[in-house]
């Protein structure tokens, strides 16, 4: 019995030591932060938002002199977590890190959204952008966008896009591109990005728009055939692939945009302080390198710039949603 207890105590000590949030707070305390700060991740553990939050939380804790904990409030759309932050007191102690692109599609997509994306949430700072890789199964005899368009004309009904879910940015991207080039592909929703990749690698569906880092190895291994990369920057490992911008494709900026938001009513000085601290953290080489390894490009900016980005994204995706008449709430 004694040994077990000793082992247990040792174990607890090790676990506690492994958790930076439980370490005593030593940094000079900013007067504005009076208690523990919670970062809400509106998805399950392991996603991009979750990893970013857990990467940055210890640094934020050091900077503001208060413990910072990460809490998952998962749902497929991210709306349960966002709703929680929207309804939290406006004191800057509850933050949301989420896929800002997905958040921007919600007001037009979901009929009965329980919060107002622009009024109930205050943008704090953008964090990173990670482009989509546009790829097909190797059995599809097309290596460029033009060949793919020609293939679809000759073989209607053979192409199916696997997406991470109904109404997801991937889904909307496939709709916009299909419409622009007259490609009549089927759109097959899956439960997230990983099942979608599985489906396309195993040729259940055969076209995909998915986060570059997760998709890249399959292109390198010739299990998928790359067509293009979203955004305006080429990827070093597949420098032969053109960007959406070069091809003159629509939705150039489709991809994963991660950003921090907080509750409405937070004093502007608090938001500015949070923004400044987050930018400092994103400039640290160890954080910036990890984000690069996650396949992202650090993107920062003022709260106003983020707010402007949101307004633009809501309008752009809103137009797509309305044109295609997609609706998620019954």
């Amino acid at each position, binding site marked *: 019995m004694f040994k077990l207890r000793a082992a247990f105590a040792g174990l607890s000590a090790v676990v506690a030591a492994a958790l930076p949030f439980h370490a005593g707070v030593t940094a000079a305390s900013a007067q504005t932060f009076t208690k523990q700060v919670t970062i809400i991740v509106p998805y399950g553990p392991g996603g991009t938002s979750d990893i970013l939050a857990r990467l940055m939380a210890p640094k934020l804790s050091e900077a503001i002199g208060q413990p910072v904990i990460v809490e998952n409030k998962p749902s497929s759309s991210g709306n349960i977590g966002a709703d929680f932050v929207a309804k939290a007191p406006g004191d800057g102690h509850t933050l949301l890190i989420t896929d800002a692109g997905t958040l921007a599609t919600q007001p037009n997509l979901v009929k009965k959204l329980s919060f107002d994306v622009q009024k109930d949430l205050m943008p704090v700072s953008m964090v990173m952008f990670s482009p989509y890789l546009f790829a097909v199964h190797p059995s599809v005899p097309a290596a460029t966008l033009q060949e793919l368009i020609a293939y679809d004309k000759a073989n209607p*009904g053979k192409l199916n896009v696997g997406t991470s879910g109904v109404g997801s940015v991937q889904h909307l991207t496939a709709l916009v591109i299909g419409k622009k080039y007259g490609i009549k592909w089927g759109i097959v929703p899956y439960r997230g990005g*990983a099942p979608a990749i599985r489906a396309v690698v195993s040729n259940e569906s055969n076209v995909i728009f998915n986060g570059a880092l997760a998709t890249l190895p399959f292109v390198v291994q010739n299990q998928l055939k790359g067509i293009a990369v979203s955004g305006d920057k080429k990827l070093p490992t597949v420098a032969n692939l053109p960007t959406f911008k070069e091809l003159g494709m629509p939705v150039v900026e489709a991809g994963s945009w991660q950003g921090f938001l907080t509750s409405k009513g937070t004093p502007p000085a608090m938001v500015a302080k949070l923004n400044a601290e987050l930018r400092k953290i994103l400039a640290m080489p160890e954080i910036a390198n990890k984000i690069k390894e996650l396949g992202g490009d650090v993107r920062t900016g003022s709260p106003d710039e983020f707010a402007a980005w949101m307004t633009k994204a809501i309008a752009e995706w809103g137009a797509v949603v309305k044109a295609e008449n997609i609706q998620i709430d019954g």
Partner: protein
Amino acid sequence: MDLFANLATGFAVALTPANLGFCLLGALIGTLVGVLPGIAPITTIAILLPFTFTLPPASSLIMLAGIFYGAQYGGSTTAILVNVPGESSAIVTCLDGHQMAKQGRAGPALAIAAIASFVAGTLATVVIATASVPMTWLALKFNAPEYFSLMVLGLTGAVVLAHGAPEKAVAMVLVGLLLGLVGIDVNSGAPRMTMDLAGLADGIGFVPIAIGMFGIAELAVTLGKPQDRSLLTVKFSNLWPTRADIRACVPSILRGTAIGSILGVLPGGGAALSSFAAYALEKKVSSTPERFGRGAIEGVAAPEAANNAGAQTSFIPLLTLGIPGNAIMALMVGALMIQGIQPGPQVMISQPQLFWGVIASMWLGNLMLVVLNLPLVGLWVSLLRVPYRIMFPAIVLFCCIGTYTVSNTVFDIWTMLLFGILGVFFYKVGAEPAPFVLGFVLGPLMEENFRRAMYLSRGNPWVFFDFIERPISAGLLLCAAALLVILVLPAVRSKREEVFQEE
């Protein structure tokens, strides 16, 4: 003799003192969170993730994998002792494991669970080391029609799980299927039967249902029957399985391992079936199926073996394709990516030390777990000597905390309460919860894959039966049909016998 060279590389990595330490630490933490009902290994892994950023990639993966299968071990302990399952595989362990505990055979149940897991883990490690490539091929052969047919086979077998009235088991499967549909429809995005509750948008949670129907309901029912509680305090004369127990279990463990190894490879859904399938098979091949559900030791050994073998082989798609088969594997991908390693086909070639080191550590982890758990059996059993009036509030509290941590909302607690009350009702009317849970888990997957297959074939149902293009799907449906005949025939025959006797 590539294999031996590879394994040697692997053990060279896994046997360094540091990595042994991380393996042990992972196994310990995993056992701890596994024993606590509802605390998912995924939560723990997520919390430990920042810590692993500073470790070498092999060490971090070894530790995280240790948590994963440590939790599988710990989960069966709680299932056997107090009938609280933390995940779908543990539900099958509850069926006979907890009955054994009630009969004063908690020791043998726990020991056989540990032994079965260890044997299965060892064999599965060999499978991973030798057959990763063909197993990967199998995983890629499974598309929407195959998944649908597999689920049909699984549900046909669900009725075998019940030891009571089969017509009630069928009803429970149907209820499970129906409740599994609650939530946003994957194919159309429409919310179904959610009553506008945000907490139901992603469906009814599995953990609140399982803990409510098994754990809370069992507690409330047992407390109302003082005579049942005295069973929990019978003398535990033997802690270890008898020689006859072991002999009965050897074939069960082997069959369980085979089923688990194959189903574990299939991403999304295969693993959920493995322990159910192993249990159903044991009951079917047994010469005394009536013992199942009343404390048959094979009913603990086979699903435990299947579950652990499946947990191991679920690493195959991750290691060879870079495709995570479940949420925990997705988290491991995250851990590797932070380390600058992209999991995928190239990992085996470009990072042989990582790949084989992890495989070797799986076996070492299983060894550690069995060494760790067998001595603990006595301690766990002595826990049952704590008066029930003290044990009971502790279980209620831990069930609540565990359910809360799944998604950090009290909505799940209310769900657990509702299903606890429903569980008592089902118990009183003689309807068993296990077929319900299988229907609940498989229903959404079945519908999703059915509709996806129909969409991809542009409405042609022939895809499911096409022996030339889709031999696996057609074969699975054939098995389901055969199973149905086997299930119906004895009932028909016994009816006829009854009729003859009456005459």
